[in-house]
């Protein structure tokens, strides 16, 4: 039932095994890409500019983390509304709350963003687990609604963002990321985490063992929504304004990052750390490609090709690991 117990029964170090199995390839890729980046553009990657780099990568890492819990919950669980949610939070925080209502205090704006995320997540969870619409369709619905509403309240980009939020763009963007990791670390201490992984690996077995499958999945969507709201704040910090068109572009890249980070899209395998490493991989990849100063067309070709190659290598490595056992 509990994957940890199973592993322990086979006499292996559970932590090491799960880590190497889930993020093995992504870590190798991370080291290679980091080395290539350091060789190609040492100026951009001096320790002094690491903070700025983290700031640039933060929204993607946040989006990847937000995409993870629902995928872990299994049975086709996927949240493609994470990107539009980030855009929606961005638009509401800047256009509605900051510019129109004049609210600038972080004590109000941060809870508001997280609350929007939680509500959207709860709506997704309700549709996907209680109404039982296939998750990709349910979140496609939310995707379209959020994109449409965002464009209605914010037809064109507008600025600026509050000063404290802009200050979160550089090195300080590590702060919201750290909070997200801390929250996930706490979730992992809870019995809920074991239930989530059990539901993700085999929901029928979990159900017969007395796990409330619907509740577990619903909570996963709410967590995804809260993380998505946090990622929306990070996006706002990075662009320092509101832009209705940026958010939705994060959805598919974030899911690609999650898959690259060894999270099985079938559920029950992987974790937030892997997703974050996958996102950093993609960021470093973009960075390598831009240093070659090629046209955006070549960039796109290389980007797509490396994405496919990376998931292929992940699959091959997984297959070899299975054979070795």
């Amino acid at each position: 039932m509990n994957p940890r117990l199973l592993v322990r029964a086979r006499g292996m170090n559970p932590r090491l095994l799960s880590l190497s199995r889930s993020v093995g390839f992504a870590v190798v890729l991370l080291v290679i890409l980091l080395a290539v980046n350091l060789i190609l553009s040492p100026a951009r990657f001096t320790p002094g500019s690491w903070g700025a780099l983290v700031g640039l990568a933060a929204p993607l890492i946040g989006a990847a983390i937000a995409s993870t819990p629902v995928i872990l919950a299994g049975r086709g669980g996927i949240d493609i509304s994470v990107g539009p949610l980030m855009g929606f939070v961005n638009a509401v925080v800047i256009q509605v709350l900051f510019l129109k209502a004049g609210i600038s205090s972080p004590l109000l704006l941060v809870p508001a963003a997280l609350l929007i995320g939680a509500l959207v997540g709860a709506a997704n969870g309700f549709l996907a687990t209680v109404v039982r619409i296939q998750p990709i369709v349910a979140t496609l619905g939310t995707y379209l609604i959020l994109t449409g509403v965002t464009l209605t309240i914010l037809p064109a980009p507008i600025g600026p963002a509050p000063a404290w939020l802009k200050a979160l763009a550089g090195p300080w963007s590590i702060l919201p990321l750290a909070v997200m990791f801390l929250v996930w670390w706490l979730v992992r201490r809870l019995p809920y985490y074991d239930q989530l992984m059990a539901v993700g690996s085999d929901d029928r077995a979990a159900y017969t063992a007395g796990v409330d499958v619907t509740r577990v999945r619903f909570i996963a969507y709410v967590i995804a929504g809260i993380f998505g709201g946090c990622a929306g704040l990070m996006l706002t910090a990075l662009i320092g304004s509101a832009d209705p068109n940026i958010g939705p572009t994060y959805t598919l890249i974030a899911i690609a990052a999650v898959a690259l980070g060894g999270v099985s899209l079938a559920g029950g395998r992987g974790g937030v750390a892997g997703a974050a490493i996958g996102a950093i991989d993609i960021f470093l990849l973009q960075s390598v490609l831009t240093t070659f100063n090629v046209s955006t067309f070549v960039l796109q070709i290389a980007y797509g090709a490396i994405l496919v190659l990376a998931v292929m290598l992940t699959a091959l490595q997984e297959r070899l690991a299975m054979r070795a056992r």
Partner: protein
Amino acid sequence: MAGRNLFATTNARVIGAFCVATLLHLAGAVLIPGYSSPFAVRAMLVLASLLAVASIGQTLVVIMGGIDLSIPFVIGFANVVAAQLYGDGWNFVLVCGLVGVLALVIGGLNGLISRSLDIQPLIVTLGIGMVVQGLVLLWTAGFPSGSAPQAVSSFVSIGGSAGPLPVPWLVPSLVVLSALVVLVLERTPYGRRLYALGSNPGAAPLALIDPVRMWIVTYAASAFFAAVAGVLLLGFTGSAYGDVGQPYLFQTIAAVVVGGAALVGGRGSYLGTIAGVLVLTEINTLLIGLGFQPSAVQAALGLIIVLLVSLYGRERHVSTTI
């Protein structure tokens, strides 16, 4: 017993979707003057036919338990490449042949990589689609040129007529094509293998179904029909545009699901997809006719998809699957 029940529910979903399309049309006829005028109906039929062609592949792939995100990219690829080569003075039949073969290769690659390595087709088709789009952009330097031959334009033109019928040849051709697709799905070994593989990927190989071959063939077919849609769209819009397929990314999935298919595979029909296509076209036309902004139309579309699917497209509770 499960087979009969499943069939009954699938039929119910298809009928439900057709009913919704009819109701939407009636609503439009009441609310908007001229909604049922011959020209408006003709325009809707043409738009629906284009979406129906693009959705053939998605239907097959979804029944098999996959998903194809490369459809919009292949549509754009066929659209731009056909226009460019025809503009360079190539014979149009030759151009179509080349585009078709290339599309088959792209789709085959999608299926081969996804199945043989057991990777989520979501990621593979997205990656391959991005590569294809990048290659096309590189080739045309981002500025595609050329146009469609007159024959293709009149084939899809809203004002065209097919013999005595007041619709362009596209519409009757689509009816024939749909009948063929339904026939292939219901009455051929390929169709039975497709449903078998989708319902139970583990058991299908034991019934001597080669999953890799099925995935290659089906994804190749999906890309091929996407390319057909791309060439038809070239005739419809008159000039090449690489992003012409982008609206079709989610619309094909929505049409398939509104038509009663399950994204986990094994369930669905092309007739259902046609119903889904009609529903989507009606909603779009109705909302634009009511004077909504494109962004509001999008939001309403999302809301209506969710509402419709919650009416008749619900999944079973886990307790009933044990």
